[in-house]
């Protein structure tokens, strides 16, 4: 939790959280699915949204926080408009994934795991994504960009708005 995030308006939060809870029938056994949908609404899991989920489901906030911090797919800090996940699996690794990652880091000016100041990019590393034939690769907003070379990275970033 590095970045200070401004508090959100609870009414606005509830407007987004309530339909999600409705959809899951207020079933706390669906907590992971609920948090996934809430994250899809905000692009991350705001503190106020987690508090709202706990209150509306009638479960402990400590449980919601425990689940929200357990899965890597959840983020408690705002994420950039574009998600970049550099594959660090074995096949990509031997084809120079480390150099690819380094180029992304220096090009954007952030480290893996961080989000750029302008909220444009979030850069992460992942284990094998199962597309080894394409390696080295980056998953860019859920699309594979394969056969990367260091030269291809700038054009890829420039293409994004």
């Amino acid at each position, binding site marked *: *939790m590095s970045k200070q995030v401004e508090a959100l308006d609870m009414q606005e939060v509830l407007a987004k959280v309530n339909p999600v809870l409705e959809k899951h029938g207020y079933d706390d056994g669906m907590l992971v699915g609920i948090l996934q949908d809430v994250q899809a609404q905000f692009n991350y899991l705001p*503190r106020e949204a*987690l508090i709202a989920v706990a209150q509306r489901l009638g479960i*402990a*906030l*400590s*449980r*919601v*926080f*425990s689940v929200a*911090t*357990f*899965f*890597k797919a959840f983020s408690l800090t705002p994420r950039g408009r574009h998600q970049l996940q550099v594959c660090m699996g074995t096949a990509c690794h031997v084809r120079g994934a480390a150099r690819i990652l380094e180029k992304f880091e220096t090009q954007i000016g952030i480290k893996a795991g961080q989000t750029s100041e302008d909220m444009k990019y979030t850069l992460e590393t992942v284990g094998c994504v199962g597309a080894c034939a394409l390696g080295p690769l980056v998953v860019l907003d859920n699309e594979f960009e394969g056969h990367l070379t260091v030269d291809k990275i700038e054009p890829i970033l420039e293409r994004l708005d």
Partner: protein
Amino acid sequence: MITVNINGKDYSAEKDETVLAVAKRNFIYIPTFCHNEAVADYGSCRICMVEIWTKKGKNKLVTACLFPVEDGLKVETNNERVLFIRKNIAELLLAKCPASAEVAEIAAQLGVYETKYRIEKDGNKCILCALCTRVCDEVVGRKAISLVNRGINREVAIPFYDNAAACIACGSCVYICPTNAITMTDKDGIRTITMPNCEMKFALRKCNSCGREWIPEKQVKYFLSSAPGLTIEEFDLCQSCRK
């Protein structure tokens, strides 16, 4: 009634009792960290490993605190295989909790004084047994704390590391902690409860007679709201002055 054989001697037991319960009743020592009668067993520390043989011929290592006895079960709590695995667990715990005197003590009982594993975090005392979160949930009923994050970053914390809203400052988590990883001090009218990566502070209420700060204001509020018959006057005097 069923019969269980532990270390070569027969003992009678109830069905579904755990191996640990039968052993304890008969003064057979099995080391534990995460076991406490106040809460349901959990099996996280693994130091209570024993070897069992069932009537049907199954042989394996199990945690004594979770394994239910059955008729004709044979248990060994201290043989070579058990001690080998227990020593290894002690080494793992030493690497996890280099600062815990309690871990060092049980390790020393096993003849383990150093660890071949990498020390995870200097100064750490928490073995992640979750006794604190379990007592807060099962006994206190507040669910104020939980284990958060995963892997090597797992630790006990209040939500967001700063939200103590559900905590009533009772100190149960402090008393139950087997390794003193959670501490509590009452000083200058403030109770401070310190967890590995977060801290909670609560104002204390003074006794009208002796002036001792004896109970957190928040706990008084909680009692008043949960027991309708209570009045605030009942908290004017501390336990000693009330007699």
